[in-house]
């Protein structure tokens, strides 16, 4: 039955079938399926359940109660770590009540910025997997300004942020320039530049002036207080002004893509570079510009890492953001608003995962599995539709993904 013939039946059926076929529903259901599989994994990893399963055929009920308890405890801890924890809230302090939300937002901030970076490049037909290197460069530039220069309050932070944007933009722009000039595929160059950035950081962490005395650890000097992003909810909570930057950046990207000439050009190049060229647009220039912007956004993620969340650079300052940002951008379907929500979801999952690990002993890796499953199901909408017997309507993000970069 085609959507058109359903629509002729009654208006209500038509609306319902639209909801059932919609991408939002697929996203929600993908989340549900991922959580269900995650609960099986929690149960399997639980030692009590394992013990009870040894006599499963003699007394199966124990296995189910133990598994049920493990799953409920696990997801409750996930919630307590990410949204609200009645135990710490009972202390009555601001940190106790808002602590979990603050952690969620802290984790979400660089993911949103990185997700915007990937999403923006994606809209222009480029797949930026170089987030890791761009975050590292952004953090190195911002961090160096933060600890080596000593400027007045306000100015220091501003210069640090600009330096971070510059670092990420240089690294991203290099890829765009290579593609525009030589046609080198951005996937290859960004991956290679990731290696260059990571080992460059490893080298810098052994250079005097960058490394912290007494040179006993691979860690940089500490960023000046003047250069730190201010805490939004007081010193006890880690939430910092990076979140505001991230939201501004999201609005900026939305405006760029929907309201500006440049954004139109980028989208035109992304949709069909040959048509865009025929229409008189410079495809090469678009590549350079979009990679500068994308790298700059990742640079901001680096700023959030070094001037916000942490105060000194170590070898893993990128914290996997470069790659998590790809999944965030896919989950957010390359749109600014969607990326913000996806970043918040992943931030919440990570913040909750920390609590889940601490209070139930469930490995934090499980959260990564759930994240991956969500993206897996979103990338394969046919699978979700098959599980829930949904009608197929048009293409979802799956087709977008299958089409790939540069179509």
């Amino acid at each position, binding site marked *: 039955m085609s959507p058109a013939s359903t629509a002729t039946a009654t208006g209500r059926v038509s609306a319902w079938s639209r909801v059932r076929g919609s991408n939002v529903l697929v996203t929600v259901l993908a989340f549900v399926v991922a959580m269900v599989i995650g609960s099986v994994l929690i149960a399997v990893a639980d*030692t009590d359940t394992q013990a009870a*399963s040894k006599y499963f*055929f003699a007394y199966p009920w124990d296995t189910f109660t133990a598994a049920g308890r493990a799953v409920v405890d696990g997801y409750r801890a996930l919630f307590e770590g990410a949204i609200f924890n009645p135990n710490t809230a009972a202390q009555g302090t601001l940190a106790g009540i808002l602590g979990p939300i603050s952690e969620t937002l802290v984790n979400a901030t660089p993911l949103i910025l990185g997700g915007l970076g990937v999403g923006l490049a994606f809209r222009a037909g480029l797949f930026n997997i170089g987030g890791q290197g761009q975050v590292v460069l952004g953090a190195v530039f911002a961090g160096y300004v933060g600890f080596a220069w000593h400027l007045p309050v306000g100015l220091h932070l501003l210069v640090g942020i600009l330096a971070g944007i510059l670092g990420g933009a240089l690294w991203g722009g290099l890829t765009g320039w290579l593609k525009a000039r030589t046609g080198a595929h951005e996937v290859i160059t960004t991956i290679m530049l990731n290696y260059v950035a990571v080992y460059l950081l490893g080298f810098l962490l052994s250079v005097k002036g960058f490394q912290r005395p007494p040179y006993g650890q691979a860690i940089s000097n500490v960023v000046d207080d003047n250069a730190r992003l201010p805490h939004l909810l007081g010193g006890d909570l880690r939430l910092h002004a990076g979140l505001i930057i991230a939201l501004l950046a999201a609005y900026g990207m939305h405006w760029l893509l929907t309201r500006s000439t440049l954004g139109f050009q980028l989208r035109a190049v992304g949709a069909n570079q040959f048509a865009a060229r025929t229409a008189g647009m410079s495809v090469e220039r678009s590549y350079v510009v979009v990679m500068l912007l994308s790298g700059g956004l990742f640079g901001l993620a680096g700023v959030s890492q070094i001037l916000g969340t942490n105060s000194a650079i170590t070898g893993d300052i990128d914290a996997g953001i470069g790659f998590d940002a790809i999944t965030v951008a896919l989950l957010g379907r390359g749109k600014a608003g969607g990326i913000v929500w996806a970043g918040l979801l992943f931030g919440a999952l990570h913040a909750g995962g*920390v609590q889940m690990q*601490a209070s139930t002993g469930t490995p934090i890796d499980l959260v990564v599995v759930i994240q991956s499953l969500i993206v897996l199901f979103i990338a394969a909408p046919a699978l979700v539709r098959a599980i829930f*017997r949904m009608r197929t309507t048009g293409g979802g993000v799956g087709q977008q993904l299958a089409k790939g970069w540069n179509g």
Partner: protein
Amino acid sequence: MRHTSQAVKIAAALGAASLLLAGCGSKPSTSGSGGSGGSGGSGSNGGSGSSAKAFKACMVLDTGGVDDRSFNQSSWAGMQAAAKQNSSINVSYVSSSSQNDYTPNLNAETNKGCNTVLAVGGLMGDALKAVAQKNPKEHYAEIDNASSLPNIYGMQYNTAQGGFLGGYLAAAMSKTGKVATFGGINIPPVTIYMDGFWEGVQYFNKQKHKNVAVLGWNEKKQKGGTFANSFTDLNKGKSISQAFIQSGADIIFPVAGGTGLGAGAAAQASGGKVSVIWVDTDGCKSAAQYCKYFLTSVTKNLSDPVTQYVTKAAGGTFPTGNYVGTLANGGTGLAPFHQFDSKVPSSLKSELDSIKKDIISGKIKITSPSQPQ
């Protein structure tokens, strides 16, 4: 709803499949009828059910996981040993997936009501200091960093001392006059071993008027040296080792975790002409498959000080200040020679003993810039 029931079916099938793997057996009888689904069983790791007043010791691991065959694993082994000795000690750990997790992990463990929290890895220093400052009544310990506050106990290691003995031994045992070392990554906790090894060889040359060469590292050139850039890539370790062997080295000291296993593989391929000095743990226990090729191991004893700290803390007195693992207190040293015991001349063994005494007394000065201050 048919749809959901199908999803449940899939989940159930997955669950059942995993349960079928080990499903037969009888329920451990908890005095008959009841069936209250407790954890039951005489718990092997005396965890939840034991006494009411348990001492909770919690550990925050660095990145790499609990089974990293390195400092996370050894530190956790120390916790487990403490719990084994004293059933009222309850131990648990959380691992960090990046440095972003240090602070939330330390906070979560503190809020959970742990009596003491141990942080593994020197990079956690800043985060630990901030958390400890906000919780002045809580007791903390940190591995690989000096104490920065009264409520933090620092545990550090001068493994250059153990490396020195390894270097001297290697120089004395080499038939080709060339020994080699390589690291995982050029970071101080790695290069401190290589410094010690290099110094040991130089000391041997000076004492015996020999000219044994060290490939792969020179303490005077801290930026140079051979590094695998991995702690897990066995093949990289093997190819580096083979390059060393082709240049004439016959004893190799890998300071690279799992990558070092490649040196064992290369020694095996050489048919026993090449031997290896293992690092951190006694190689004949942690990588027993290559025990035949392990001359000895330069050890870093992470477990015992952790056990001692936790045991003392559970007894009511929290140690303060710093612990520095040295040759004197067994924090570093050489493991037994195992299969090489008969091949190491007894004169060399007594030389090593006297060098050890000289390092402890300060007669031999170790110059590695990576030593704990």
